[in-house]
Each structure stands twice: as structure tokens, then as C-alpha cells.
């Protein structure tokens, strides 16, 4: 994925089709090329437990069923130096000059199913992964026990290729562990280990499995039955996670030291092999996809859905849906279920063939426009066309309604439909009509901070009741005038809040928010108003906790603002007639 533009029903996507250097339409997967290839590389599919060539098929059942040449591995990046595979290929399928291809497509809906990455336990030094050969991960276990694996399903341990008899499983490696920043449950590892113990019991009745765990979560349909069968098969379940693993340098056996939390005793257990039941983490590409589609993340790093209960497969951005792991840890069955739900949601949109777009776009009053061009450069969508000396024009189909231009216009020439200046000023005045000194005035963007407030509500996080919140589509809709008006009406503290940089739902409109707030701090200071009374925060839709914390901080700040300060600001920030202001500015420059 290279680029995405557009909106619900009308996305334009650019895909980079990577060069394979092998023509999939003629490759018959005969393997002659790989047979002659002199390069050996660790096989990613086999978790590095065996090797592949520089030209290879990812796995026998791969789709497309075709070889691929990895140019990074190919000899010296210069195929002329070798060229053996091309010689061997009877189909003439190999083309060293193959190039990446950029493909553009129009689509109406997007389903994001970018999956997961598996946790790398190297950082958990106490388990000795990579230090001890016979400590493996559950993914490596999958390859070792698989008939299509590097050992053709003969289950052996890495150090001496002997079949292990005593195997220890450690649960929650990289899950439910706030110390390494992974506080969430990975959902699948308990059942995966139970499955592993049953496989071992089935293949090798003499193997003794022991599982070290904090809780066994076997909540799904027929899961408890599997857990009971595992116990009946002789697997020992010991409540307690090990603190250390030692290796006997002679035998390469491992001694695991753990507190059995049921008995309270420190126990030592010797094993031939230890399997780390590793958790799952958000995929590395998540940030990139998130940026391309303006999606947001929850605190655990997975994608944020539109509503945790009522819209579990919809992204907050219309026309985009989630399937599988990237939304939250889930097993295969749940992934399939969610994929069905996502395709049904996307299908409904495609079937209908048309969609209503909210009437919140920008309108320019040609008579009021002073042709200054302040609006055009701030539009993240380049939806405003302006030439020097000409009235600015909005391309409605491209306008997403962030309101950035409305806030940038100094001449009231831009009206944001349904979010007009008049509406905001009326709200500010209404809220601050009585006892303004008790109130913290908050501008919150629709997508993130307002939703963050909703999240605080849904999670029943309490915070002081002093804040009064007004919703804008984007924080960049908040004009200097709106903030100043709040101070003029007696607000002790004003908070402008929006999405984090990466989450901005209008590409990068909130960078203008920062600029405006910077200018306002300077203005306030100039007017003798304590600039700290204006605050800026980025609060994502998932950060209910941050929302509550910030509201607490704002209330503390409010208490420091004196009656005199408020009165001074109300006076000092009074609008000056435009002409007088200009003269004064000119005087300031020359003086």
C-alpha cells in the first residue's frame, strides 16, 4: 500500500506490486531453479529452523504457486555474476529486470485485515531465549511438530536433535505483563498450549508436559473440554510463572525455578526443552496503514473500532472496516466471524451504490472574500483553489469539512456548513453567561478528544465537573477569535484538544491548531494575560484515562486563576477596531 485518498464510497488507492523476478503465469514450481541456486538463507516460514535458497517458494501450498527471487539475497545483487537459475528454468520464467509496478484502483470500501506479529521474547532475559538452544517459542514448536516442517514432523530439540521427554511450557510470555508494556491478554496462547500438549500426548505418549501459568483462560466453545482432556492426558498445570531458567552446559537440559503460587513453595523443575508460549503484538505495518487511512489505535496498540459494542467492525472513518487480529487479539474462529461481519458491512455499502455525505463542507462568500489566499494553503485536501487577485473557490467534492479554512479566514468570508462561527460564539456566550470563573472551557475535536470524553464516560472514570465542552469537527476549526471570545466572556482556562499527530482525521490539519495556539500564547502574553490559561492537549478516542486526567489538571489550573486576572483578560482582549489595530501594529514594527 502506497497511497490512499478519497472518502467513503470513493477511495483511490495506489498499490506497489513488488517485483517477483519470476513470471507467475508460466512458473510451474518444478524447483529446478532452487536446486541450482548456490545461496542459502534462513527460511522465514520455518522460523529459521531450516534454510531456503535465494530463489524459493515460500511454502509448498503457497498461492500463487510460484517461485520468487529475493533480490536482496541473490548473489551480489548482480544476477549476471551467477545466472544459474535462469539457465535451469525451462519455462523462461525468470526475469532479472523485473520491476516494481504501481497499480491504481478505485474502491468503495476498505477492509483492513493486517493481522499480527508474534512477540519476540529475546528481551525477557530470564527465560534465556536465544541464549539456550532448547528454549523455543510456540511458533517454532508449530514448525517442529508439523509434517511439513524442517524435521518432517519428528519432534526433536535443537541442541542435539534428540526427542525431548520432559517439556515445560511457560504461559503469558509477552502478555499480561505491564513491565514490558504488554498489559493485555493475547487471547490465544492458553488454548494453543493446551492444543500443543494434546498433540504431544497423541504423538508421543511417553512425553511429560508441564505448563506454568497465571490463569488458564479456556472460555470458548469446547475449550474447557480440551483443557480437561489435556489434564487427563497427564499434563501437569502449575500455577506460577518462572523467575529464572538455568542450563546444564553438559546435557543442555534446563532447570526452571518458579514459585508455585498454590503451595507458596519455590520449586525447581528439570526439562529437556522449554516452550515459551509467546503473545501477540500489533503488526509493525499498523502505523503505516493507520496513517494512510487515518485510523486510531487503542492503548494496547491495536486498531480502535467505531464503538466497542455497537460498531465492532467499523473504523471511525466511514467506509473502512476491520477483520481479524489487527482490531484485537482473537483466535481463528473469531477472525473468521469478524471477517464475515466486515464483508457484510462493506457489502451493504457496495450494494446500495450510493451514500449520503454529511452537509458540513466549506462555503466561500465571494463578496466577502478579500482574495488574500490565507485559506488555500491550510487546506489539507487542496480543496480550495486560489490565485493572486482572485476570489478563493471551494471544490465541494474534495472538502472534508475540517473547518481549518474557516478558522484561517480573517474576513468572515468562509462559512462552515453546520459549524458556523455564529453557532460557536453563541455557545461560548451561553455557557459562560453565569459564573464563568467556575468553568474550564474546552474545545474538543469530534474524532478524538470528544470521543475520548465519551470513552471516559463509558468507562465511568470520574473527573471534576467544572469543564464545559464544545465539539468541533477538527481542532483546526478553533479560530483565534473563538478562543479570545471565551476569555472575553470570563473563562479562567481554555483548553483546545484534538487528535494526536498520527491520528489527525484531516490528514494533518491539526498542525494548524498548533500554529494558532502558538500565536494565541503570544497574543495573550502581549495583552498581559497569563498564557498558561490557554492549554493544548492531544487526546485520542481511546484515551479516556488521559481525558479524565487532563480535566483534573485543568481544574487545578483553574483554581490558580484569580478574579482580577479574569477581569483583566476580559478587558484587555476586547476586540479593537480593525483599522486602529493595524495602525498600532505598524507603529510597533517601526518603533
Amino acid at each position, binding site marked *: 500500500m502506497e497511497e490512499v485518498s478519497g472518502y*467513503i464510497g470513493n477511495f483511490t488507492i495506489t498499490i506497489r506490486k513488488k517485483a517477483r523476478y519470476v513470471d507467475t503465469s508460466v512458473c510451474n514450481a518444478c524447483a529446478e531453479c532452487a536446486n541450482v541456486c548456490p545461496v542459502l538463507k534462513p527460511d522465514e516460514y520455518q522460523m529459521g529452523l531450516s534454510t531456503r535458497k535465494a530463489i524459493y517458494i515460500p511454502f509448498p501450498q503457497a498461492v500463487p504457486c510460484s517461485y520468487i527471487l529475493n533480490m536482496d539475497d541473490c548473489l551480489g545483487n548482480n544476477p549476471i555474476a551467477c545466472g544459474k537459475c535462469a539457465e535451469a528454468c525451462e519455462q523462461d520464467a525468470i526475469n532479472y529486470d523485473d520491476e516494481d509496478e504501481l497499480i491504481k484502483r478505485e474502491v*468503495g470500501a476498505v477492509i*483492513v485485515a493486517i493481522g499480527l506479529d508474534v512477540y519476540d521474547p529475546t528481551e525477557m532475559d530470564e527465560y534465556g531465549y536465544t541464549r539456550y538452544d532448547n528454549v523455543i517459542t510456540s511458533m517454532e514448536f508449530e514448525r517442529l511438530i508439523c509434517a511439513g516442517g524442517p524435521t518432517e514432523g519428528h519432534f526433536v530439540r535443537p541442541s542435539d536433535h534428540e526427542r525431548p521427554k520432559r517439556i515445560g511450557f511457560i504461559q503469558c510470555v509477552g502478555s499480561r505483563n505491564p513491565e514490558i508494556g504488554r498489559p493485555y491478554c493475547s487471547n490465544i496462547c492458553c488454548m494453543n498450549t493446551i492444543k500443543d500438549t494434546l498433540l504431544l500426548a497423541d504423538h508421543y505418549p511417553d512425553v511429560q508436559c508441564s505448563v506454568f501459568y497465571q490463569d488458564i483462560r479456556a472460555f470458548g466453545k469446547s475449550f474447557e473440554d480440551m483443557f480437561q482432556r489435556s489434564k487427563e492426558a497427564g499434563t501437569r498445570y502449575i500455577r506460577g510463572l518462572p523467575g529464572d531458567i538455568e542450563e546444564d552446559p553438559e546435557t543442555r537440559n534446563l532447570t526452571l525455578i518458579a514459585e508455585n503460587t498454590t503451595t507458596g513453595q519455590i520449586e525447581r523443575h528439570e526439562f529437556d526443552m522449554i516452550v515459551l508460549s509467546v503473545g501477540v503484538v500489533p503488526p509493525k505495518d499498523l502505523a503505516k496503514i493507520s496513517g494512510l487511512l487515518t485510523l486510531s489505535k487503542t492503548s494496547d496498540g491495536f486498531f480502535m473500532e467505531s464503538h466497542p459494542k455497537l460498531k465492532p467492525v467499523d473504523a471511525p472513518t466511514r467506509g473502512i472496516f476491520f477483520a481479524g487480529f489487527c482490531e484485537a487479539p482473537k483466535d481463528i474462529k473469531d477472525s473468521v466471524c469478524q471477517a464475515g461481519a466486515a464483508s457484510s458491512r462493506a457489502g451493504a455499502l457496495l450494494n446500495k451504490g450510493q451514500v449520503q455525505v454529511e452537509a458540513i463542507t466549506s462555503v466561500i462568500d465571494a463578496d466577502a472574500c478579500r482574495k488574500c489566499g490565507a485559506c488555500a494553503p491550510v487546506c489539507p485536501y487542496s480543496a480550495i483553489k486560489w490565485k493572486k487577485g482572485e476570489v478563493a473557490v471551494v471544490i465541494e467534492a474534495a472538502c472534508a469539512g475540517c473547518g481549518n479554512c474557516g478558522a484561517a479566514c480573517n474576513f468572515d468570508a468562509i462559512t462552515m456548513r453546520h459549524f458556523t462561527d455564529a453557532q460557536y460564539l453563541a*455557545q461560548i456566550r451561553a455557557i459562560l453567561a453565569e459564573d464563568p470563573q467556575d468553568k474550564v472551557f474546552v474545545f474538543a475535536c469530534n474524532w478524538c478528544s470528544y470521543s475520548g470524553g465519551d470513552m471516559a464516560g463509558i468507562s465511568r472514570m470520574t473527573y471534576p465537573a467544572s469543564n464545559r465542552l464544545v465539539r468541533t469537527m477538527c481542532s483546526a476549526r478553533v479560530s483565534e477569535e473563538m478562543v479570545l471570545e471565551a476569555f472575553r466572556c470570563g473563562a479562567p482556562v481554555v483548553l483546545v484538544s484534538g487528535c494526536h499527530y498520527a491520528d489527525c482525521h484531516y490528514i494533518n490539519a491539526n498542525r494548524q491548531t498548533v500554529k494558532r495556539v502558538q500565536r494565541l500564547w503570544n497574543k495573550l502574553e502581549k495583552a498581559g494575560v497569563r498564557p498558561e490559561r490557554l492549554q493544548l492537549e492531544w487526546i485520542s478516542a481511546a484515551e479516556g484515562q488521559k481525558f479524565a486526567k487532563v480535566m483534573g489538571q485543568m481544574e487545578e489550573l483553574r483554581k490558580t486563576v484569580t478574579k482580577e486576572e479574569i477581569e483583566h483578560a476580559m478587558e484587555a482582549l476586547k476586540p479593537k477596531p480593525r483599522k486602529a489595530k493595524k495602525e498600532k501594529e505598524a507603529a510597533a514594527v517601526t518603533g
Partner: protein
Amino acid sequence: MDADPKGEELRVGVFVCDCGLNIAGAVDCQAVADYAETLPDVVCVVRNKYTCADPGQNEIKRAIQEHKLNRVVVAACTPLQHEPTFRACVKDVGLNPYLMEMANLREHCSWVHPGDKEAATRKAKDLVASAVARARWLEPQEETTVPVTKRALVIGGGVAGMEAALQLGDAGHQVVLVEKEASIGGIMAQLDKTYPTMDCSI
């Protein structure tokens, strides 16, 4: 500027929702309703146990017709949840959906200020006052309808992406499936057996 918005006669109806005890448990809804009566151009105030339920919506529709309301303020939950509901409700009786405004008394008030009814009620009043002030300046808007390109993009060729793409295909839609690796299959293709059925992953 804010004296008389449009020159037309404004008739605002305010509907205060108890949401069972979700709002009424932490906010004095009667006090909020009484306060709403005092706000400019408010001609009708109704309290509902559940405004989003049929009886609540019917009440709004009846009031719009009876009192010739041309602005509606629903003081209930977050607009991100029920704005579409109430927009459709007012539209049903001929009011432009953009003339409906919500005040978020639940997520932003009652649920987060459970310990201090007085402060929560004070805040709720301000939120209603703000919504009424905004409602007075609302204008009817016409939504644009845009066509939908009849093709879907699925990003990721693992079990979820493949399943989604297949189902969309079965429904007769064109699908573009994007996978960064050389083969589809994802992590699942690397597994041996899968629970709970203990069958092969591929």
C-alpha cells in the same frame, strides 16, 4: 450578533432524557428541564425516561407537530451514538435533520460526575443552554449523495482477509486483495494443527 439569529420565529423544543437512571441517577433532570424552560425561544420542554425508545421518539414527533417546533434539542447521550437516530426521527415529521442538536448529558456528565449531583446538574444545565444557543443558529442543510465505487479493497491475505475477500466475492463484488508477502496465508499457514478441532491449518 446573537440577538435574533434569522429573523424567523424560532420555536425550540427541548427533550431531557433520564436514560433510566443513567442520567437521572447523577443529574437532577427535573431541574434541568425547568431551567430549559427559561432559555430563549424554548416553547416546549419534555422529560423522557428513554428518549431513544419509540415512546420517546413519538413524543418528539408529536411535539414538533403540536408546537410547530422548528428546532429540536435532545439532551441525552453522545451524538456519536444517537445523532443518526434523532436526525431520522425529526426528519420523519418533515423537519430538516440538521435542525436537531444534542446535549451530551450522559457520557460527558452523569457517568463521569456520579458523586456530586449539584455540580453535575449545573454542568447539565450549561450543556443544554449551549445546545439551545447553537440550535437557534442552526440552518437546514441538504446532504449530498455520492456514488459508491462497486469494488472493495482488502488489506492483508491472512485468514481474516481471505475470508472477507471470499465472502465479498461470493456476494458478487469485485475485490482487490493486497498482501505484502509472496504468498497469501498469513500466520495461520505457519501453524500445524489448530484448536479446538485439531485439524490442519492449511
